[in-house]
Structures are given as structure tokens and as C-alpha cells.
């Protein structure tokens, strides 16, 4: 008797899948867009929007691995310096060794991937705190970046190795289009593919996934490598855009990433996160910055505001987690 009752109830309830909580970031971004376009005449201008979205698209590559890791309950604080590392290596490969852009980027990504694998290995093998290990990596790589970039003394990359970044399809940068395609594909994979979906399980309870035959440590290691590689890729693109390796490229990026991922619904405790929403989180932050500049808000004050937003997002995360538990 009870079986039949549960069976019938199941079907009714399954239809209600719409989850209001998950749409917060969409509402926030929309509200910000409406507000800025109504109050600032320069905001809704194609060039302005394109420049915001281009910035998002470059950073987006760094948030891919970051989102995977946050879903599994790990943090990668080295994204910023790996981002800058991409520029450093571009400078070395293209200027010193006269390589062309393609091979230079691939080689840079391979090197970054090895660094990511090593930090992933240390974290999983010795059960170290990922935040601490990646802060160590951040400092070490940052040191290397500064050392190499000051030696290069602002030498620009050869024009032929950097101009590809500015290519456009129609009126829109190819980087933006690539971001949109990648974000949608990854979103689908995260929901439909076992290889990606298992990350959520690992984030919820790693011991359980090990019990049921998932190689949780290996998945984490791969994701640390992916995070490092794609951050390097994003950084290489950004460096081509600013023409020369620069130590300020990617600075504080890890903080932007946490804020973006968390206001995009990811939980620092693991188990939640979405690629499209992380991207929207970045869009929200860049739009906010753009708007604040349009309102002539001092850049230091902007930083204070972003800090407050991060704290608010973390509080919201804890409250959502507590509510769902």
C-alpha cells in the first residue's frame, strides 16, 4: 500500500524542478544592466559592452578549473599567478626563442599543467589543505614572474604573435564566442556526463565516492592541472591583448574567482557550482566595476566594495547550505 502511494507522489513532485534560489545571479546581473543603462548614457554602447564581455571571456578560462575544484570542495589560489605565468612564458618563448604564438601557448600550458599536477598530487596524497598549498604555488610562481618580467623590461611581443587575439568573427571577438561555446558545452557535460557529474558527488562526500569506486583523488589531481593550464591560456591571451608581459596581469584574480563562483551559486563547502553561472558571476563583477568607474567611484573604494560583496556572498553561501541541510 505504502509503495503505491510513494510511487504516485513521486511523479507529481518530479515536475516541479524550477529552483528560484539558483537564479539569483541572473536577476542580479539583469538588474545591474537595467540600472546602468537607465542612469549612464555611455553604458549601453556596443564598444563598452564588448569590452566588458571581452574581459570576462579572458578571465573565464581561469574560472573553468576553479569551478571544477570548488565543486569538489577545493580552492585554487594560484589561478592569478598562473594567469600571469602565461604572459611570462609567452615573453620568453616568443621574444627570446622566437617561437610563434601557437606552439608558445601550448608549451606554456604543458608546463603549467605539470605544476598543477604536482600541487594536485601533494594535496591528495598527503591530504594537505588545497588553499595553503596553492598559496605556496602562487607565491613561488609570482616570484618567478616578477624575476623574468623585470628582466624583459617591458619588451613587447612581436606583432605577429599577438595580433591573433584581436581577430573577430562578424563584429565580435572570437575569444568571446569561444567562451560562450565552451561554457554551454561544459554546463551540459556537468549535468549529463558521468565524468563531470562525479565532481558533485566528490564535493558532497569524498569518502562515499571512494567506497563506490570513484577515483576521487585522481579526479582532483586532473582538475588542478586543468585549472593551471587554462589559467595560463587565459593569461597568454590577456598578455597578447596588452602587448607585453606585465606583472599586474592576473593580480588578485583568485579573489575575483571566488567572488564570481560563489555569487554564481557555488559553495566553498563543495557540492554546488555551475559553469554558466560562474561566467555570469564574472560578468556581474566586471559590469559592476565598469559602472562604478562610470560613476567616477575611486578605484580604492571599488576594492572596498568588492571585498564587502565577497563577504556577503560567503554569508549567503553558508545560509543556503544550512537551509538545505
Amino acid at each position, binding site marked *: 500500500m505504502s509503495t503505491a502511494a510513494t510511487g504516485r*507522489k513521486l511523479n507529481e513532485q518530479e515536475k516541479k524542478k524550477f529552483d528560484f534560489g539558483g537564479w539569483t545571479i541572473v536577476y542580479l546581473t539583469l538588474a545591474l544592466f537595467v540600472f546602468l543603462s537607465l542612469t549612464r548614457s555611455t553604458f549601453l554602447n556596443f564598444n563598452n559592452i564588448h569590452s566588458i564581455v571581452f574581459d570576462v571571456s579572458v578571465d573565464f578560462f581561469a574560472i573553468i578549473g576553479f569551478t571544477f575544484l570548488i565543486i569538489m570542495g577545493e580552492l585554487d589560489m594560484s589561478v592569478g599567478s598562473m594567469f600571469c605565468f602565461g604572459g611570462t612564458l609567452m615573453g620568453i618563448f616568443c621574444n627570446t626563442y622566437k617561437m610563434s604564438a601557437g606552439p608558445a601557448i601550448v608549451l606554456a600550458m604543458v608546463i603549467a599543467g605539470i605544476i598543477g599536477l604536482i600541487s594536485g598530487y601533494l594535496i591528495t596524497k598527503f591530504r594537505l589543505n588545497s588553499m595553503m598549498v596553492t598559496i605556496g604555488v602562487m607565491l613561488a610562481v609570482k616570484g618567478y614572474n616578477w624575476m623574468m618580467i623585470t628582466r624583459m623590461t617591458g619588451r613587447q611581443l612581436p606583432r605577429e604573435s599577438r595580433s591573433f587575439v584581436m581577430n573577430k568573427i562578424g563584429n565580435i571577438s572570437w575569444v568571446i564566442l569561444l567562451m560562450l561555446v565552451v561554457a554551454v558545452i561544459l554546463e551540459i557535460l556537468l549535468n*549529463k556526463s558521468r565524468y563531470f557529474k562525479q565532481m558533485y558527488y566528490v564535493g558532497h562526500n569524498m569518502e562515499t565516492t571512494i567506497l563506490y*569506486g570513484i577515483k576521487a583523488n585522481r579526479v582532483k589531481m586532473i582538475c588542478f592541472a586543468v585549472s593551471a593550464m587554462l589559467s595560463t591560456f587565459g593569461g597568454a591571451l590577456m598578455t597578447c591583448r596588452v602587448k607585453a608581459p606585465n606583472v599586474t596581469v592576473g593580480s588578485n584574480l583568485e579573489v575575483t574567482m571566488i567572488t564570481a563562483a560563489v555569487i554564481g551559486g557555488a559553495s566553498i563547502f563543495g557540492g554546488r557550482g555551475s559553469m554558466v553561472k560562474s561566467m555570469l558571476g564574472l560578468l556581474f563583477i566586471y559590469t559592476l566595476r565598469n559602472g562604478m568607474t562610470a560613476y567616477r567611484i575611486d578605484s580604492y573604494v571599488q576594492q572596498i566594495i568588492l571585498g564587502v560583496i565577497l563577504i556577503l556572498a560567503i554569508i549567503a553561501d553558508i545560509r543556503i547550505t544550512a537551509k538545505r541541510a
Partner: protein
Amino acid sequence: MSGKNTEYLKINNITKAYGVVKALTDVSFSIRQGEIHTILGENGAGKSTLVKIIMGEETPDSGTISLDGEQVKTFTPSAAQAMGVRMVHQELAVFENMTVAENIYPSHDFKKGGRIDYKELYKETAKQLERFGLKTVRPEEQMGGVTLAGQQMIEIIRCIVANPKVIILDEPTSGLNDEEADRLMEILERLKAEGMTIIYISHRLKEIMRISDRVTIMRDGQYVTTLQNDDSLTESDLINNMVGRDLTLHSIKNPQDVINNKEVVFEVKNLAKAHALNPSDLQLHKGEILGIFGLEGSGVTKLSRMMYGLERKDSGDIYVKGEKLNKLTPKNMVDKHVMYLNNNRKVAGLLLDMPVTDNVSLPILGKVSNKLGFINSKELKRISTEYIKKFAIALPSLSTKPRKLSGGNQQKVMMSACLAPEPEVVIVNEPTRGIDVGAKEEIHKFLLEIAKKGVGVIVFSSELPELMRLSDRIKIMRDNTIVGEVECSEFTEQTLMRYAAVGASGKGAGV
């Protein structure tokens, strides 16, 4: 009794339940002043809950406790300490990076002008150490450098210098060798001679017989009896009272139902790890239910975890259907169709905050996805719905999270996850811990049913009636060793308990 209070610590009608599970039912007995009183019982008999209540770590649902005629009003650890009750826990709680003296007097009792008077502290500590025969330990030594037995003794000294009225010792000899245990016994006897009241908890019958004045036996959360330890008391008396359930209430497996299949599906050969597991062997046949029984600290959990690759082994091999596993990892086990049901669903085995469907689908993700890894969500839903119906799990919806379910339903969800991949061997660890009778019955039926279909089942359980109902044979562990095996036709609680508590099978008083 020369002025001594015969009802010094009085436990009156104590009842305590955790959810639907009754940990203690109407327990009453008294402890005399100046005696060594042992509390004995199987795992889950209610000893630790009772001790927690005496120590103020839990509040009983009903009933009272009084010490020396004074009734306990609030159940908090500080109230219990103020009344003069101290306890030495089984897991040592020492400050390894501090000196022995600081460990014995953690609240800095020796002060001079606002500063610690180390001279006096060390002098007093040295006096205490000598009194308890710890001549080789120096007061200013680091605690971490002292042997385990020494640390244990120092913890007892820490309790004693507080001048308690009653001290409780929980399995104090579990980490000690025979000689060290012997010394501890001597000290306890001396403390008793000085008038201390001691509550002693142990599984070691030999020790209990040696030092106790009286033994209170508990079973299934109820008080059974209190026995005077005089010349007529035998180990058999203790065992019989520990297990003496009315077996008409619990069915024992009918020996005629024992499956006589000689095909070995799972085999453990010489599995061993230093200080954790002595070389162990076992064979599981197709369709057989093999029970493994052991009291706390007997090594059962370690064996179960080690044979599934959850804990590292030193040596030994696992064979699944005659094939040796090159690398013992949970992943390889799952690939060979061996599944593991964890003993603590709150720690691992369930995704408490993910929908029930996700819980059931986790182990079968590979099975329901195509070569590119895309999940067939229709198939997934079909399988999870099938198991939910099979177990009659009461759910408001498929997206309900296990955290919101009762213990019994949580256990059924975990069971579904384990069985959804249709394994050929299942290792179940405490399959019915902390769940209500109805759910227990369903899980038992289900285990019997899958065994009938040819699945080999290894049941680790601390509940004898459960094992006797399910198993074709039972292996018993004691001191990290498999000490015996009993066939279904010879199941009696006494035989099994004797192996677990004493180690020998003989019917006499042999030890």
C-alpha cells in the same frame, strides 16, 4: 559493612532513547562505597550511554542518579566533576607537548605570587609518580615521550589527585600488555584499599574475575543482574548473563536452509597488518552468508575495511572468483562486482545532502552511461525508482535528501546504492545499526533474498541475534585474530560469546 554506604552511587530507573532507538530502558542498580564494580555487556548493551549519563555528557529521558544521598540535578560534565566523579576514557586525552607534571595538574594548582611554582609542582608530581610505581618517569619529561602504559597511568593519577569520590575506567587495559595490565590491577586494588569507589568497564573476563567485587551485566539497554564475585562465580555465569536472550523472540537460521555451494566467490588469504590484524583467512561461497562477530576492539572493523582496500595492508591477498586482485583498491573491488556497506552512514556511504536518486545512481553511473560518458537519465530514474519500491522507502519525492529521512530509511537508501550495481559479493558492516525494528526486519529479509539468488554476503555485526538469523556460519574475532568458526547447526549465543570474550571453545572454565 562498617559504616560504608551500600547505595553510594544510586542509579534509578534511567531511560534514554536516541530517536526510535532505545539505548537504556529503566535501568536501576547501586554501587557500594569502596568497591570495584564492573559493568559488563556486549557492544550496544548500553554501558557507554550509562557512563555518559553518570559523567553528565548526556541527560536521561527519565530517571535519577544520586551520589552519596545527593541527587544529581543537572547533567553537565562540570556538575559531575563537582560532585566528585572522574573518568579515564578509553582514548587517552593527554597533552603530548606538555610535561608530565603539567598533565597531572593541568589547572596549575601550585602558584606563588601569581606564577606557577614549578619547584613545588615537580616535587608533588614526583611524589605521585613514585606512589604509583612510575619510577622511570620524570615530572619535567614531555608527555609524548612516555610509553602508552605510562600515559594511561598518568591519566589515572590526574583523576586521583583531584580527590574524586568515584572514578570510572573505560577499557583501561585495551592498549596494555599483560605485565602492564597486571601492574594496573595492583594499583586499582591499592586504591580500593584506600577507600576509592571504582567503576570498571572491560570485556576481558579474566581481569574482571580478578579485581571486581561485583559485576553488573547489561544487555540490549537493560539491566540484567548484579553478581557477587565470590568463589562460585565462573566465566560461564558472566557469558550466560551477557547473552541469555529469550531466543524464541529471535529466529535462528534453520540449518536446512544452509546453502551447500562449494564455489568460492571471495577469498582472503593471509591478510595482515602489524598491530592491527594478525594473518587472517576466509572463504566465501556463492550464495552464502558469512557472519563475522567480535566485541569492541577485536579488529572486526579493521578486517572489513582492509579487505575492501579502504585501509592499507602489510601483506596478504584477496581473490575474487579465483582471480587474484593485483591492487587492492575500492575501485578494483567495484569493478569485480564487490560492494561494501559502510558501518556509519553519517560518515560515508550516503550523500546526505543530495537527492535520493543521486545516491542510488552514484555507484551505477558507469553502468547507465554510454561510451562517451553521457548518462541515460531515464534508465537511472527507472533503477532508482525500482529500489525505492523494493525497499518501500517512504519518500515525499525522488529529490528528497537523505538527511531529512529517518535512520531506517537512510539505511535503506544506502542499501539500495550498494545493491543497485547488482554485485556478486556484498560486504555489509552493521547493516541495521541504530534503526527501528520494522526496517531491520526488511533489511534482514532482503539480505536473505539476495543470498538465495546467489550473491555472497559477508555480514560484520556486533549483534549476535542478527548474525544467528542471517549467517550460514559465523567466524569470531578476538585480539585482531580470527579465533574460531561456528556452523549454523551449532549456533548458541554462549558458544559464540565464549569465543569472543575468552577465545577458547572448551565448555569448561578454560581460558
